[in-house]
């Protein structure tokens, strides 16, 4: 076959060659093949659709706000923004293939129409006559880009073989890539011959066959994402790590197939197995069982084998309980996923199913649950210890007259390092002249149990806290813990209206002009998952730190920040298997050479305190942004009397 590209053949004389006419036998054959191909496609796709539609309805799904959905569709599907942003080179190649497909939709339609003598794009056709065959040239440009891109992607998958695409080489992907390549080549080749050439007929049929073979392969393979992922992205819940409310007395989370909702099923079938989730997962990267991709494929496998009405447990053959409880809920997977899969509601849903029914047995977990039930704090300490700390630090008690309620959180109230952060932040607030008070009584916000899937304890804690909020007439909360921020701002809402809440980095950033500006040392800032990906606060803590030193980023920063290992209740679940997540991150932070590690979460702080000491002989100093700021204030207020202390 002549595969000369039209790059140098873009001479005016050439045009897209199609056979001038088709015999009746050809038309019959074509019709038969089309029917066969469509039957092949729907035979399988129908089962997928049925599995999605017969799944349980999502109790809290609302189509509104449509604007957000249209934007997501435009940005993530049409612009391919996420695909390109997170993996630029293969992302762009993918985008060209995608855009090529869009451009080719009309060409393909015309292709089959012309097989029945109904072509509309050539210069004699109803549309073609208006644009004088222009569209063929337009599509040809895309054909060229698609051919180059798909060839590149083929080389990547079969020769470069990034580990995230999976250990097993997917031959079906090779077949599909070949079909797409052949589709483009047969199209482009038709520009190099006259319509009267017998080659034109050959190319025409080859092109048609490529499409007809491709179609039934789609629902069999991960190429189903072609059909489903635009819908998945449009219908996604939109909120990061949105945990749906439990509905009625029989809903305990994802226990069996009956609990799988339509969105979960749709997402499971949309997975394209690109491995972005695994690539960024702290558990997968430190040798644990958990691989977010496998969780999604596990759900898909379950649906394929048993369907959404099955009462077989979801955790067992298809997904492991051990894996589900290794998730730090850092949300990298959900953030990265290019096809709109929301991993966290699924992983947390599986945990809910296990914990709410008592199927999860773990000594550390049970200890945590009992501590929260009995003591109301995750550290299992006596509330009198909190009282003593408040007294010792002379923190004012909130009485409704102050502007802010300073929420201590378990770490701020009981953890020695957390207490130092609170003490420092109180100094900053005093310096800024903001009135604040701490609550006499405070329970854990319920973050660890929320993420571990214990709805009973979470509900108790949320309700008790909301009652305190109401009694004390709290309207504005500021806290040092991003986990508390998230839980108060989003998760409490299931049980009542919660007050406005802000992280101390956001608070300090608003007053940054009033904070002393010094040229301090290099500070490497670690984005906490719950402040960054969960809340989008990337700049505020950096702005605050920039007042006290030179902020530098570790290799993985902002949206790509690597978890400290504490989230999702894992701080309380004892020793990890494999390498410690905190060690991996601590090494990365120390390797930047900065003299200070700036943290903005008391959990990150406690993880790195041990990890930095364990992985480095001369570890950088570890400080919360409040401690760094308080130190700058202390330096600034003493300097007038004793000269240039802060060089």
């Amino acid at each position, binding site marked *: 076959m002549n595969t000369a590209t039209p790059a140098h053949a873009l001479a005016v004389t050439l045009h897209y060659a199609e056979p001038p006419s088709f015999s009746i036998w050809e038309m019959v054959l074509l019709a038969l093949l089309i029917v066969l191909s469509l039957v092949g496609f729907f035979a399988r796709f129908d089962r997928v659709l049925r599995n999605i539609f017969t799944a349980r309805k999502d109790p809290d799904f609302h189509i509104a706000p449509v604007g957000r959905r249209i934007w997501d569709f435009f940005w993530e599907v049409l612009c391919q923004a996420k695909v390109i942003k997170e993996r630029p080179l293969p992302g762009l190649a993918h985008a060209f293939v995608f855009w090529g497909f869009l451009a080719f939709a009309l060409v393909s339609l015309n292709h089959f129409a012309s097989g029945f003598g109904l072509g509309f794009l050539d210069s004699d056709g109803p549309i073609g006559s208006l644009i004088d065959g222009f569209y063929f040239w337009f599509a040809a440009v895309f054909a060229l880009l698609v051919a180059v891109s798909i060839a590149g992607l083929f080389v990547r998958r079969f020769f470069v073989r990034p580990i995230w695409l999976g250990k097993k080489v997917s031959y079906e992907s090779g077949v599909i890539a070949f079909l797409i390549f052949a589709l483009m080549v047969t199209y482009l080749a038709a520009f190099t011959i006259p319509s009267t050439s017998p080659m034109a007929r050959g190319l025409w049929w080859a092109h048609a066959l490529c499409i007809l073979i491709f179609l039934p392969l789609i629902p069999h393979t991960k190429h189903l994402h072609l059909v489903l992922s635009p819908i998945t992205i449009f219908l996604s819940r939109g909120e990061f790590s949105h945990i749906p409310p439990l509905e009625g*007395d029989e809903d305990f989370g994802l226990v069996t197939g009956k609990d799988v909702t339509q969105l979960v099923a749709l997402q499971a079938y949309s997975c394209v197995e690109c491995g972005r989730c695994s690539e960024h997962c702290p558990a997968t990267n430190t040798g644990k069982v958990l691989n977010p991709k496998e969780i999604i494929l596990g759900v898909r496998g379950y649906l394929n084998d048993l369907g959404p009405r099955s009462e077989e447990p979801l955790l067992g053959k298809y997904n492991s309980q051990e894996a589900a409880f290794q998730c730090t809920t850092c949300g990298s997977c959900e953030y990265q996923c290019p096809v709109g899969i929301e991993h966290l509601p699924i992983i947390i849903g599986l945990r809910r199913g296990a914990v709410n029914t008592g199927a999860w047995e773990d000594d550390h977990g049970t200890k945590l649950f*009992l501590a929260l039930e009995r003591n109301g704090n995750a550290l299992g300490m006596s509330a009198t210890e909190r009282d003593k700390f408040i007294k010792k630090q002379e923190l004012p008690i909130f009485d409704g007259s102050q502007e802010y309620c300073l929420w201590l959180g378990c770490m701020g109230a009981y953890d020695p390092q957390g207490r130092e952060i609170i003490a420092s932040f109180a100094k900053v607030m005093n310096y800024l002249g903001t009135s604040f008070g701490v609550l006499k009584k405070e329970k854990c916000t319920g973050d660890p149990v929320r993420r571990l899937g214990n709805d009973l304890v979470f509900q108790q804690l949320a309700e008790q806290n909301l009652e305190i909020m109401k009694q004390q007439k709290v309207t504005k909360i500021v806290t040092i813990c991003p986990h508390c921020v998230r839980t108060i701002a989003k998760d409490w809402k299931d049980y009542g209206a919660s007050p406005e809440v802000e992280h101390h980095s956001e608070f300090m950033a608003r007053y940054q002009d009033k904070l002393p500006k010094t040229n301090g040392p290099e500070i490497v800032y670690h984005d906490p998952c719950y402040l960054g990906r969960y809340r989008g606060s990337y700049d505020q803590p950096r702005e605050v730190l920039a007042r006290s030193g030179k902020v530098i980023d570790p290799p993985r920063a902002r949206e790509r920040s690597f978890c400290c290992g504490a989230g999702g209740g894992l701080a309380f679940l004892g020793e990890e298997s494999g390498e410690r997540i905190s060690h991996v991150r601590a090494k990365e932070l120390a390797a930047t050479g900065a003299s200070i590690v700036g943290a903005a979460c008391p959990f990150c702080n406690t993880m790195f305190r041990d990890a930095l000491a364990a992985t480095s002989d001369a570890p950088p100093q570890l400080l919360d942004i409040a401690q760094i700021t308080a130190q700058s204030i202390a330096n600034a207020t003493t300097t007038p009397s004793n000269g240039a202390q802060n060089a």
Partner: protein
Amino acid sequence: MKIIVAIKQVPVRDSNLRIDASGHWIDEDDLSYEINEPDAYALEEALQLKEKHGGEVVALLAGPERGSQTIREALAKGADRAIHIECDDLASLDTLGIANRLAAAIKDEKADLILTGLQSDDLGLGQTGVVLAELLGIPHATIIMQVEAASGSIKVKRELEDGWFQHVEMPLPALLTIQSGISKLRYATLMGIKKAKTKEVRRVSAGDLPQAAAATVTIERVYLPEKKKETQLIDGSPKEAAAKLVEKLKFEVRVI
């Protein structure tokens, strides 16, 4: 095996206790309550025995309305049903009075085994279980660390002083008072709480039970521990002072 577990509701640990106006009991306003800790282990033991040998676990509680919360938790953890003796006068009863009520409420149950906590976290008398066994006319054993059931009898391990244990075999029915911390407690689940809603709670009014004789033991006065600090200065040469200090630590304070 039918097992009855007698549980008590006590103020949560670390409560800020105040003495009430009468001076005979604590002020119960603003207090939160929870299951008495040794009773939680008694319940756990009962649930484990049921899981091993089948049967039924019945929770038994005497106390005011707020006790129903603790009953619900026991049902949520796996008890099959409950008996709530409703009474507001627990503080005025002595051990015999309470045991009398418990015995009267369960005399028709014909339980194979009755478990209680070793003692209560509020009064700490450690007698209720023993007296209950006497009233029911069944054998009992105290400070139980381990229970193994065979047909018609059980083998138990008792904790003695100084790291010693006693292994006893006893016939059924029997009553055991369970030591705290002998096993791992289970956590209550949402499913358990939902199921608990449909489980039977038999409410018995204290007035319907035979009245016990007047209390033979009454509380004279309840008071908070007085905080005092005593400082003694030991004089003499360092050698003499050290010798005196060691003597005091050994025989007065008894810490070495």
